């Protein structure tokens, strides 16, 4: 072979090699370039998610009712466990229960808890298992001191409740969802967007030893922490309201109850308590139906506390005055096949409208309704807010839709005057009574007064404009009539049981509602409530107390009454209100 041919073959060979190299390079750079760049970035860059801190919820004195704290997740690395699962569980479970007694309250529950932990430690084909979360630092230190091989801890941020389960229904709780912390029920649910904040990200170039390269690239998307909510809630008032309510429920053998304190001029909720309640730290140990706030999500027939509302409508329309007499209050009123009685079957001929309220006279109220006229009565039920949501900033408010006016039977038109055949939530009732307390205006209840963003900027939430429902004069007249109710009602209305209250003018009305069930009223079961405000001439607060199914006595004045007056006495003292008399 000639030398030229050899050189040509070598050149062709070189050419092929060059082409192969070019093709391979094109493959790495063009076809696999993106994938390789990602792999390289994975090695060079360190990526860190920056979770936002969820906003705190504070009472009106700036105390954090809900905050955040570092807690720990207890996990087990199953491959590294040396002792038998039963022995391991017997070492850490008592510590878990010591710091969270709700985990197991009796021997059977302790055994169940032990078994479930042993089960977790013996799951086949598993390396890592989560045993418990929300563990405090003290509990973690105590478990670590046991030196159990195979157990470890991870840090997590949990919601912290310094006042324990106080105002749990208002607050709601936070669960871990797919998108991070999710607020459920109450304020946590309603203000989820404001509280949650926005996560950030850090992308930093690191060397082989995972140290940051100072001249390398750094990309940081700043996290935005959640906003803080400042409430109108007063934690001292909340505390004594909860205390009095719990005592009342126990004393009168009630199945539960609720109490609200509201500023009638601004709609600011000062306190709101309901029992049975739940512990937001251990929400998973409570049934689903215990999370809803009964104050806004439970409907009930209000009974006689509706009477001042209907009376206010009739007086505002000029149909009656407090001194007008009832010409048909001599005995039971018969409407169709039904007879309407008074609560004690006593009748007061020629009662004035003041007497009708003082005696809580059902027959007198039927007369008031008839004098007012049903169309006007229906109109006022709407004006007093019974057909719409109150507008409170809480999740889960329920209301009942009033039937169209032309679908009411004569008996319905009669019973609605004393609060039967109409369903309301407790806050609607408080709002309606506030109209009488504040001079005639329908306010919008609220809990959050200010939102503070992560930069510390305050956004004060304006009080929503209120509509006039009754004239200031009618409101004043009704307030005086309700004072007469508190002072002159049958002897069991217990204002006098608290001597300090004798010096104050307190407006109040009690109600005892029957509980409708499947088309009739449940025998022997009632809902007792009292609503009112003080001092009557210049109210500082409206209070409503409701006790469900009291067993010791059935009347609202007997059961909810003492709780109401104890709360009022403490409020007058707390706000340094000077006596009227």
């Amino acid at each position: 072979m000639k030398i030229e041919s050899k050189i040509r073959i070598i050149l062709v060979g070189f050419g092929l090699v060059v082409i192969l190299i070019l093709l391979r390079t094109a493959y790495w750079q063009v076809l696999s370039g993106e994938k390789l760049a990602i792999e390289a970035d994975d090695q060079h860059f360190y990526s860190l998610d920056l979770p936002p801190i969820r906003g705190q919820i504070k009472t009106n004195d700036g105390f954090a009712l809900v905050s955040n704290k570092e807690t720990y997740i207890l996990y087990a690395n199953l491959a590294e466990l040396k002792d038998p699962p039963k022995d391991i569980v017997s070492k850490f479970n008592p510590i878990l229960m010591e710091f969270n007694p709700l985990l197991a309250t009796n021997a059977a529950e302790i055994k169940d808890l032990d078994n479930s932990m042993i089960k977790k430690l013996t799951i086949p084909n598993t390396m890592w298992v989560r045993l418990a979360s929300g563990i405090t630092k003290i509990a973690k230190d105590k478990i670590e001191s046991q030196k159990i091989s195979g157990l470890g801890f991870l840090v997590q941020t949990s919601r912290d409740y310094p006042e324990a389960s106080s105002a749990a229904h208002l607050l709601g709780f936070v669960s871990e969802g797919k998108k991070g912390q999710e607020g459920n029920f109450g304020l946590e649910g309603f203000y989820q967007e404001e509280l949650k904040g926005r996560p950030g990200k850090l992308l930093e170039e690191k060397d082989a030893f995972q140290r940051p390269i100072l001249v390398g690239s750094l990309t940081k998307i700043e996290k935005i922490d959640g906003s803080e909510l400042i409430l109108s809630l007063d934690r001292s008032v909340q505390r004594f309201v909860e205390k009095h309510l719990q005592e009342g429920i126990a004393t009168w053998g009630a199945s539960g109850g609720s109490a609200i304190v509201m500023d009638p001029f601004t709609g600011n909720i000062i306190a709101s308590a309901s029992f049975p309640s739940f512990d937001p730290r251990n929400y998973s140990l409570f049934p689903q139906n215990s999370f809803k706030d009964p104050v806004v999500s439970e409907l009930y027939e209000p009974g006689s506390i509706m009477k001042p509302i209907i009376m206010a409508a009739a007086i505002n329309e000029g149909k009656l005055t407090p001194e007008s007499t009832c010409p048909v209050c001599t005995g039971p009123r018969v409407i169709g096949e039904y007879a309407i009685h008074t609560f004690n079957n006593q009748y007061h001929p020629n009662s004035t409208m003041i007497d009708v309220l003082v005696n809580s006279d059902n027959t007198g109220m039927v007369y008031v309704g008839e004098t007012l006229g049903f169309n006007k009565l229906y109109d006022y039920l709407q004006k007093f807010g019974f057909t719409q949501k109150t507008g409170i900033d809480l999740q889960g408010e329920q209301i009942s839709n009033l039937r169209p006016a032309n679908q009411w039977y004569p008996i319905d038109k009669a019973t609605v005057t004393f609060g039967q055949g109409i369903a309301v939530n407790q806050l609607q009732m408080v709002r309606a009574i506030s109209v009488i307390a504040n001079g005639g205006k329908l306010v919008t209840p609220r809990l959050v007064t200010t939102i503070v963003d992560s930069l510390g900027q305050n956004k004060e939430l304006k009080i929503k404009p209120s509509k006039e429902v009754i004239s200031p004069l009618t409101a004043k007249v009704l307030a005086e009539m309700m004072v007469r109710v508190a002072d002159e009602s049958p002897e069991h209305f217990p204002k006098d049981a608290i001597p300090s209250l004798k010096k104050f003018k307190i407006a109040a009305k009690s109600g005892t509602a029957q509980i409708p069930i499947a088309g009739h009223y449940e025998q022997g079961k009632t809902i007792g409530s009292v609503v009112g405000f003080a001092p009557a001439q210049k109210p500082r607060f409206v209070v409503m107390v409701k006790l469900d199914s009291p067993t010791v006595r059935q009347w609202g004045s007997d059961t909810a009454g003492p709780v109401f007056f104890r709360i009022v006495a403490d409020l007058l003292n707390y706000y340094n209100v000077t006596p009227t008399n």
Partner: protein
Amino acid sequence: MVLVTGLLISGRLFLANGLVDKSDQLVKLEKNISVLEEQNQNLSTEIRDSSSLDSINSKAMAMGFTKLDKYSYLPETVDVAFNLRP
């Protein structure tokens, strides 16, 4: 030319070495910040727990405070602490 290149390479090595040292310091500082933040949060939690009404209530009880059930009001017309001398 060789001298300049040598100086540049030495300078770069010196700078890189210095940066690695600074990176170490940065890592230590970040760890310190993290520890301080944790301590700060734990202290905040302790303060909140100590100023909760439950805690204040139990401390007040331990110190012998009780709730005042009866209180009196002074009439507005009475001068208090005036005209004490005859």
